[in-house]
């Protein structure tokens, strides 16, 4: 019996927490934290699958790329956050509702 189901179970739990955070939090920073947690979960899932398939090297290669992507995405997110703070004067994403109809 391998530990894969347990690993993915925890991963699912982690992603649940992340999604809950993105759903519930008003602060854009916390949204980004939720996003980070989900990304971590996805990475863990990928690596664990790679380990099970005896393809760890391949999975590592993918995770390296994912980390680079994550950095840039989070960087872009934080940049947007700061710009939003400057332009709209808020960090509360729930208050952003000028576009509607």
């Amino acid at each position, binding site marked *: 019996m391998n530990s894969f189901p347990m690993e993915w179970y925890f991963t699912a739990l982690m992603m649940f927490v992340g*999604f809950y955070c*993105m*759903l*519930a939090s008003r602060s854009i920073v916390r949204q980004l934290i939720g996003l980070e947690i989900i990304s971590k979960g996805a990475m863990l899932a990928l690596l664990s699958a790679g380990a099970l398939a005896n393809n760890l090297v391949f999975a590592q290669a993918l995770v390296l790329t994912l980390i680079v992507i994550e950095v840039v995405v989070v960087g872009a997110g934080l940049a947007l956050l700061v710009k939003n703070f400057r332009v709209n004067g808020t960090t509360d*994403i*729930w208050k*952003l*509702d*000028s*576009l*509607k*109809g």
Partner: protein
Amino acid sequence: MNLILIPIFLPLATAAAVLLINEKTKYLKEILSSAAALVALLAAGDIFLQLPAEQHLSLPWISAGLSFTLRADALSAFLLLAVSLFSAAISIYSFSMPDKGSSKWFFFNLLMTQAFAAGAALADSLLVMLFFWEGLLVFLYTFIILSQDAPGARRTAKKAFLINGVTDLCLLVGITITGYIAGTMNMSEIARNKLTLDYGWSVFAYVLLMIGAVSKAGAMPFHTWIPDAATNSSSPFMAYIPAAIDKLLGIYFLARASIYLYQLNGAMSIVLMTLGAFTILAAVMMAFVQKDYKRLLSYHAVSQTGYMILGIGTLNPIGIAGGLFHMINHATYKSCLFMTAGSVERRTGTNDLTKLGGLFRLMPLTAIFFLIAAAAISGIAPFNGFFSKELVYRGALDSGHPIFFWAAELGSFLTLASFLKLGHSVYFGRLPENLKNTKEAPFSMLLPMASLAAICVLFGFGAHLPLERFISPALSSIGVQHGELAGFEAGKLYFLSVIVILAAVINHMLGLAAGGGKASKASDHIHYAPVLKQAYAMAENRVFDIYELGMDKVVPVVAKVMFSVDRFFDWVIDTAPSSAAGFFSDASERFHNGSYPLYMALTLAGAAVYILLAALNGGLK
């Protein structure tokens, strides 16, 4: 380029070109359209001369079953020749006609009508014919409405359009049913295995086809727009469409439907002959009392249709030959007569018989052409009308129902009487003071009149020529076996016609005497006779006009019903959907409120449902 396309596409192309020409240019349009008509005439002649080799053309159209098929068999080629001939004649006649409306649009309509008429004549597929036939309807409307800028013209155009539109609809339904029953739309294929009137649907289809055909020809009771058009549109139009093209096409298709496509029985023959006889009598009665040159002629145009329908209705070869021969003859002399009316109108400015008189001295050529054509229409030997009427009479006698023969003879009597009145009041008698300076019509108007009058004479003296060259091949191409189609024969019928002539002259004398010597009142003794007086009064009030009846009585009721039906549909397709759309888009507007958590929740919930569905149905089995 197939030769058969020239008579159709050359006028079409020329019509398009005419529209591009500036309205101010002198004679360019006229020359162009006359040239096109003449070239088309040459092509038609060539097609005719190449017989018995039939030109034909078949292009794939909507699908394999429905191809664009044209075929010039002897009847079609003959008809095409006639259409082209009259188009050329009218083109030339209209050269210097001033009151034909905008000349650009006049020639456009003329050429379009010619093209579509040629197409209808040549079409082998019923659908193709229907296409051209409906096209004619459009140009009939535009022709009338553009000929005068007056409310009357608009009203008449609408009337003509509606009457012909309704009957064309009948034709459409008839053609659809016919094609369905026969399993093909190609007339030549249907003819190989003619349809019989054994059961309801085919009778229904035939009657619809017949309605379409006789209404195009202008028979009673679909004729009522023609006299109105006589007062509300130009002479060239009258000479062209009601006098020539419509008669040619209507009778052509009646012959096709009655002999070529369907195998008729005795009952239908009686129906046709009754319709013919009724048309002859009723219309000629109306014609007899008219006081307007063109209006009188237009009633005759209706009346003469009766002879053709009667001839075809006899179903025996002599009668059919007579019907077809009368068709071409009628087109010739009636065109000629309308042209003389146009000439007189152009030079004197009026068509009112009471204001005209003694023009023989001033317009001798016009008068002579009038006399020839009038003699021809009245069936005086040896002009062409005599021979075709003779054939119709013989056909009617042979059919075993002599009553139709007598009706036709009575019609002849009244025809002659009315032309005596017309001729007398316009060309003879006293010349009114204000017409002293009237001049002869110009050459461009005389030339077509002369040609048509010449044809009247030629087809009269040499009646065997058209019978052998045109009618006989046409008959055999629609599968009618016939014996000798004799020309002149000094038998009983000839003497009867002499008696009719004498009776008409006597009647005219009586009328003159009763009307105090005024030729235009020569019909009053019949007009105001005890019973007829009321009948005429009702006819003048359009009591018998189905169009006016429909417009007065039926249309308001139908309109009311249709309005409520329309409101209902309006509700179904407008109010209901727009309130539904309003409801949904309101909901959507409330939903898309810019709230991030709502959007996120929706996205996540959607994703969760999707994943569950994929996991359950995607099947990990």
